[in-house]
């Protein structure tokens, strides 16, 4: 099955068809939008969307088309899809802890739910590969991560796991590596831009 996307990609290139669409998934506040912004800014100088410390800032999948990833001599054209944080429970009380009004928090919960459902539907048909982003300061064995990696594996999508936020003092990217030994793990800081070259090299290798 590994060869299949490559063959499709080869014919795609031959006949000028669609590029690989890479979805950035992960739990809320893992730094998905920061990473998407970093990649897109590195390449085009633009941004994908706003970031916030309040979970579920991204409530609709956002797409940036035709992002050219250069790594050494290889060039790869991809579409980046930034998705809402994936979770199994959404409760408006969580947003009120950040000082949000009740009505606003309830509306945010509803939008976030729609956004996660939409992101999961994208995974079914529209995504060719996944960058799964994790916060290195958090426990990687959270139920949602195990479940999501399982779903991605079941759909036979190529995946890169990103151990993000390595600029923080209590970051422990090694935990992520031992949690998912079956997948490539790249340690980065999307905020500071550490180690992005290694990520671009991995993207060129895994999603080509």
């Amino acid at each position: 099955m590994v060869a299949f996307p490559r063959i499709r990609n080869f014919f795609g290139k031959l006949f000028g068809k669609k590029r690989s669409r890479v979805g950035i998934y992960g739990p809320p506040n893992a730094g998905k939008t920061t990473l998407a912004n970093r990649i897109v800014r590195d390449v085009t100088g633009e941004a994908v969307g706003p970031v916030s410390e309040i979970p579920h800032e991204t409530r609709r999948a956002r797409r940036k088309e035709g992002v050219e990833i250069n790594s050494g001599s290889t060039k790869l054209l991809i579409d980046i899809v930034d998705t809402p944080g994936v979770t199994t429970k959404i409760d408006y009380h969580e947003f009120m802890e950040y000082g949000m009004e009740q009505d606003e928090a309830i509306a945010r919960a509803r939008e976030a739910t729609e956004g996660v459902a939409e992101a999961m539907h994208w995974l079914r048909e529209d995504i060719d590969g996944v960058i799964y982003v994790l916060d290195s300061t958090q426990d990687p064995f959270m139920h949602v991560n195990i479940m999501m990696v399982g779903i991605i594996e079941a759909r036979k999508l190529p995946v890169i796991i990103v151990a993000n936020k390595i600029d923080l003092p209590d970051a422990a990217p090694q935990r992520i590596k031992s949690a998912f030994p079956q997948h490539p793990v790249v340690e980065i800081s999307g905020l500071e831009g550490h180690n992005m070259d290694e990520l671009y090299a991995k993207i060129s290798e895994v999603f080509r």
Partner: protein
Amino acid sequence: MPHKCTKCGREFRDGSVEILRGCPSCGGKKFLYVSDRVKNEDVLEGKSIEKIAEETKQEVLEVKHQGPATRPTDILERVESVRIVSKGKYELNLERLAESPDIIIGMGDDGKYMLDLPSMSKRKANPKKK
């Protein structure tokens, strides 16, 4: 004094919490409290458990279905894609959302569902498109 499953005769030591979920061997829900003196009579003398119950005049203990423990709490067994627990509180069934286009909304906590029929009647996107 041990308990015995009235259906299959499996023995459980006194105070065993296993039987609260029913007999692990046969799923039986009725248990008889037997004294050590008579506990092997079903095997040794071929008596039925009912007969032992009759003779010892012990009441048969029936285990009722446990409320929360036997409810399908596992999200994998759930039929809904999204459950609206209450206003602004949601539970998402990620596996179901990833594998099926059908949208089933669970309402509250008491087995109410809403089915989004258009999502179920939609044909799969043209496979040639991919």
